[in-house]
């Protein structure tokens, strides 16, 4: 085999290998790079059974309660269609708030309660001064007459619609 042919074969082989890797990576991404499952996914049985996984959604308004010890909390994660009770013992991130996005990692018990070992806050992509946020919320409440309005702007998608 001539040197030129050898080099060509090497380049083609490398290219094929890279393409194959890319195909595998894309495939893997497609299958299980969903960072979390929504309560509806869990309801539909899409979440892994008896394994640690993450659920994501919004913290339902009025659902957060703290135990007497101050570090054990329970709250409800909702995607508006379905919801899951979550128990967690630990420190909550700064942005953890009722009505805002959350991702919790843990196991789903037989009783339907999700025991979280880690809770992350998922914030939206809106940035504005506090006065503007307040004005928007007031306008939103006046417009819809719904004091439980959970999104600050109508344009902000709920984290549960990611799929």
């Amino acid at each position, binding site marked *: 085999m001539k040197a030129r042919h050898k*080099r060509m074969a090497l*380049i083609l082989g*490398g*290219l094929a290998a*890279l*393409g194959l890797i*890319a195909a595998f*990576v*894309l495939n893997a*991404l497609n299958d299980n*790079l*969903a*960072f*979390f*499952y*929504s309560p509806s996914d869990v309801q539909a049985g899409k979440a892994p059974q008896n394994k640690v996984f993450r659920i*994501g959604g919004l913290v339902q308004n009025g659902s957060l309660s703290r135990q007497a010890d101050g570090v054990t909390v329970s709250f409800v994660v909702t995607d508006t269609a379905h919801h899951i009770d979550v128990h967690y013992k630990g*420190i*909550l*991130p*700064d*942005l*953890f708030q009722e009505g*805002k996005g959350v*991702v919790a990692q843990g196991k789903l018990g037989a009783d339907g309660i999700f025991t979280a070992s*880690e*809770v*992350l*806050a*998922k*914030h*939206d*992509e*809106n*940035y*504005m*001064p*506090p006065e*503007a*946020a*307040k004005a928007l919320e007031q306008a939103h409440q006046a417009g819809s007459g719904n004091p439980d309005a959970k999104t*600050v*702007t109508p*344009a*902000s*998608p709920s*984290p549960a619609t*990611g*799929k």
Partner: protein
Amino acid sequence: MSMINWFKFSAPSTFYPLAGRLIPVFWALFAILALAGLWVGFFVAPTDFQQGEGYRIIFIHVGASWMSMFTYLVMAFWAGMGLAFNTRLSGMMASALAPTGALFAFISLWTGALWGKPMWGAWWVWDARLTSELILLFLYIGFIALTHAIDDTRRADKAGAILALVGVVNVPIIYFSVKWWNTLHQGASVSLTKAPAMASIMLWGMLLCALAMWMYSLAVALMRVRVIILERERHTDWVKELLAKRSQ
């Protein structure tokens, strides 16, 4: 613009002095834009309703992330030009861009970690956005390592070009990851298809900083490509004349 002019422009001997004249222009623009961007970012833009002062990391994080993706596209473009037309300058441009792109990918990941810890509660998570940006950094490092490992510059350029072109698939994956998959990372605040989800003065600060990074990248990549031109064209008469003039 005819093809002949274009190829003349891409001759290293023509491009070298042109780049030399452009570098100070880009540095000056960088200085103006960076000062303006930092001024707006720290002294004009108000605090954020959710993240307080912590959101100010956005003024570098977003620009650096954009630069890391855009620089990769430009690098892949030059790599493709090199494969298609066998022009000498193309490989040099790709090699000059890679370290700067890697640097911005690093800044994006670094500032992202420092932002994620206080806001999300984690320095790092393996969600699709963060993972694909990390892959981008590895692609840059892979390109640099591969092209340095091969002594013959023509072959090094070719091998690097193939890697760069294959890696292009990763750029749309990064960009759309927050739409295609459930991620911890939020969606885009600024995109071509909808109104920006930011107060306009915050947006201005971010855009000024991003433009400053553009100017920085142009200046630095041109500085590096001039060194690469000297190294690769050292046997040509014009480089010998240039260096003889300098040393007198």
